[in-house]
């Protein structure tokens, strides 16, 4: 296995991009990443593109071929593969790209993720997103994702005394971080009161506890570490890339206060990277709902199980805290174009590790961790990156 580096990143602005088509988003993120890496198109050996439900959101499947066409690489006939694992599609695409380079099969690999969600109305988007749950045993009975995460929140509150205010503090923190990210969907700061006063979606989750519907795309260019030096002196190494799966349905899960796939992926990733949770300087975690971030920082070992809410309240994960979490604004404020999210997390970590994160820069960040979840925890991907 070869060591793998990230030599370029690219990301569109996230938001309601009414004037940009799915194709344009893919092209924009891809071109940015190629320019950032300073590679020629002809050097690309393969592509992996995450997309959760492009077929139902915009009526476009066969996204691999689309990416080759917008990249103008049709004459090279490079292999391009669309990867799907619900909201973890981007993270799984990264994992596939990592495996392809590490194995020695390909040298330069483009990893991307894209979703255009605003072409359908809200009701339809909720229905499409529910396809990431168990259709037969969850969705058919009316369960939606806010409902599933509300169940987890209820249980966490019951078992550990986590409060609605603590949930709200996740959103407040991430909106603050989003206000420092020019590409974030929401750049406005909010208060705990704003969250608690926003309409209830699925008790105890209010509107501002939930990540939004977003259009956007992100990309990253991978290369063997040995080759990376040829392209850039701002190399970020992938120290660990781990994917873990679990039951599709929440009710079949062994635990409701944790995502066992995340615990498993994190444990293996720390082993692979040879680090401990406390060594992480900055993390991007899958805060599709505020409760998800609280569970994530516990599952990742940043705090003990049950202490996520309290730790958030005490500022552990704030921008100036011990382990800043979701410096980009997270899914909550940066936005959550489902298939792009995993790659967007990698974008943020690379910016942080290169020292290019502007006003939200974490000082001397050397090790970053990305935690990307599909569904209610059926898939989890953890990446650990290091500035070289």
């Amino acid at each position, binding site marked *: 296995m070869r060591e793998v580096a990230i030599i370029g990143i690219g990301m569109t602005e996230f938001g*309601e991009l*009414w*004037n940009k088509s799915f194709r344009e988003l893919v092209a924009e993120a891809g071109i940015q990443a190629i320019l950032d890496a300073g590679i020629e198109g002809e050097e690309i050996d393969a592509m992996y593109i995450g997309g959760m439900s492009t077929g139902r959101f915009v009526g476009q499947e066969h996204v691999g071929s689309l990416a080759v066409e917008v990249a103008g690489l049709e004459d090279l006939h490079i292999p391009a593969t669309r990867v799907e694992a619900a909201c973890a599609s981007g993270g799984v695409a990264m994992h596939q790209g990592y495996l392809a380079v590490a194995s020695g099969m390909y040298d330069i690999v483009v990893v991307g993720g894209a979703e255009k969600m*605003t072409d359908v*109305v*809200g009701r339809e988007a909720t229905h499409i997103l529910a396809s990431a749950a168990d259709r037969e045993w969850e969705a058919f009975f009316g369960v939606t994702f806010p409902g599933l995460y509300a169940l987890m929140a209820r249980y966490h509150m019951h078992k550990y005394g986590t409060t609605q205010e603590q949930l709200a503090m996740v959103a407040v923190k991430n909106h603050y971080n989003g206000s420092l990210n020019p590409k974030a969907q929401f750049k406005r700061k909010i208060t705990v009161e704003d969250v608690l006063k*926003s*309409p*209830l979606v699925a008790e105890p989750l209010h509107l501002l506890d939930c990540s939004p519907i977003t259009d956007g795309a992100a990309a990253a260019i991978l290369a063997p570490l040995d080759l990376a030096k040829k392209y850039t002196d701002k190399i970020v190494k992938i120290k660990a890339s781990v994917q873990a799966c679990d039951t599709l349905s929440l009710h079949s899960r062994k635990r409701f206060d944790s995502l066992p796939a995340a615990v498993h992926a994190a444990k293996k990733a720390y082993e692979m990277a040879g680090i401990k949770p406390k060594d992480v300087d900055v993390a991007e975690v899958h805060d599709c709902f505020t409760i998800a971030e609280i569970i994530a920082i516990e599952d990742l070992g940043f705090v003990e199980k049950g202490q996520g809410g309290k730790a958030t309240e005490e500022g552990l994960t704030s921008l100036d805290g011990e382990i800043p979490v979701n410096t980009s604004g997270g899914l909550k404020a940066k936005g959550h174009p489902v298939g792009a999210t995993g790659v967007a997390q990698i974008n943020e970590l690379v910016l942080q590790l290169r020292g290019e994160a502007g006003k939200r820069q974490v000082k001397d960040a050397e090790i970053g961790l990305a935690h990307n979840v599909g569904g209610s925890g059926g898939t989890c991907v953890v990446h650990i990156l290091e500035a070289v």
Partner: protein
Amino acid sequence: MASIVAYGAYVPKYRIKVEEIARIWGGQPKAISSGLFVFEKSVPSIDEDTATISVEAARRAVKAGKINPKEIGAIYVGSESHPYAVKPTATIVAEAIGATPELTAADYEFACKAGTAGMQNCIALVDANMIKYGMAIGADVAQAAPGDALEYTAAAGGAAFIIGKDGIAKINDTVSYTTDTPDFWRREGQPYPGHGERFTGEPAYFRHVINAAKMLMEKVGTTPSDYNYAVFHQPNGKFPLRAAKILGFEKEKIEAGLLCPYIGNTYSGSSMVGLTAVLDVAKPGDRILVVSYGSGAGSDAFDIEVTDKIEEYERQGIKQMIENKEYVDYATYMKFRREFK
């Protein structure tokens, strides 16, 4: 250019509160009210439709302006809820006010801006000396699927403007901004419109309203400070306030014409009824910017200047009409809207 010689408006007296609709559908009334800046909306009675509302508004205009109806050479009724798919509302109005048979008449449809499109046609016919007076009406009994977000605002009402020469308010200029933007629609045979939710905001309402206003001000060489009043289409109370802020109009300048919080969105009537409320209080020399919006999509912008003649004009006061109201519950509202089949 031509001018407004008379106007009249009509809003049914029945109201339903946002709380009452929210009670049925499990909405949070305070969040909805403050989110939309709408408190209640007008409800047409069981025997009211776009034709009766148009006739009411037309009669008020003819009476207030002391117009000889035989001198009205054109009547256009803009609506998205004409009672007939084939058979004009405009002929009903023409017959009711005694304008027949020597006139041209037609129905218009352009979502919520069909009425102002009729105004532009009347202006053109008057300026071309083809007619002495032209009447443009915007009226609707707006449809909304029970339980849809539109139900909180879809209201009933309308206004009629008689366009001629040397009237109470000069129309200095008018421009339109039009694109094909499918934010809101109703296909043949469908009982209720569909809409693109948040797509109806930024790329639809705001893009067209803001651009039409800017185009007009650039054409006539004005800035917001040159206007005493501004009226924007009012799909809810929030959008016109935000449009005013983006363009740089102080809130005070749009309050006189902002009726949506109290009567809801009267669709084709919306900006036109708002303009009648401004004319009810305007003084000679006052300058008014009016921008309509119709989904699909387009905006008509007008630069209007009130003349000395307004002082002799018999103003009827739409605000007084609105204050004379009676609340109905959801079941009565459903009965009035003939939703029980």
